């Protein structure tokens, strides 16, 4: 990729003068990331439980 062309493209993007994303957007993303992290940890915990603990064949 040519530096000159890349510079032109960056210039176009900068000229759009897009404002910083609002804090509410960040807050939504961070909440989702938090829930995903918790879900991942719960999933890992469940996966770590030996399957035999769920085996109820001897209960009857």
């Amino acid at each position, binding site marked *: *990729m040519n530096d000159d*062309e*890349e510079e*032109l*493209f960056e*210039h*176009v*993007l*900068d*000229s*759009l*003068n*897009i*404002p*910083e*994303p*609002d804090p509410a*957007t*960040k807050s*939504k*993303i*961070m909440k*989702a*990331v*938090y829930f*995903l*992290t918790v879900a991942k*940890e719960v999933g890992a915990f469940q996966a770590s439980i030996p399957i035999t603990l769920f085996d109820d064949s001897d209960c009857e």
Partner: protein
Amino acid sequence: MSSYEPLTDNELIDAIQQGDISAFEELYDRYANKVLKRCYFICLHAETARDLLQEVWIKVFLHLHTFRKQSAFSSWLYRLTTNHCINYTKTKTHLELSTEDTVFQEASKEDSTAGVDVHLLLQKLSLEDRAILAMKFMGEYTYEEIAVICKIGVSATKMRISRLIVKLREEIRS
């Protein structure tokens, strides 16, 4: 200054992979605006760009383990952004996305240094042309890859990109 600021992107990624959500927040702060600009470049719709921004960052979090650190994080991020936005636009008709959105437009007009209404300039380009430019300059796709995606020849791809660059340059200079 946050304690994360001196860290490199790759150091932040290591921290995120160890469950540090604040490191993810720092990564977001570094690149959110750059990603938003790129989303907007493709869809030209402020509200859609904000939605895409959220989706991209959730995707970043979910797929961060696939980033091998063989290139800059920004390259990986911008390619992911390009792919996500292009896939999104494929599901929408041009009409749905062409609705005027004044929020970002007003922001641009206030910029006296711009000298040209870049929004108007981008609206003159077709969605496919913007997608091609995005693939080349945001996603760092090769001409060959773009040719395959667009189902055109490699030389036609080169020609098309070259014409688009000339057009952008002329409009910006005028």
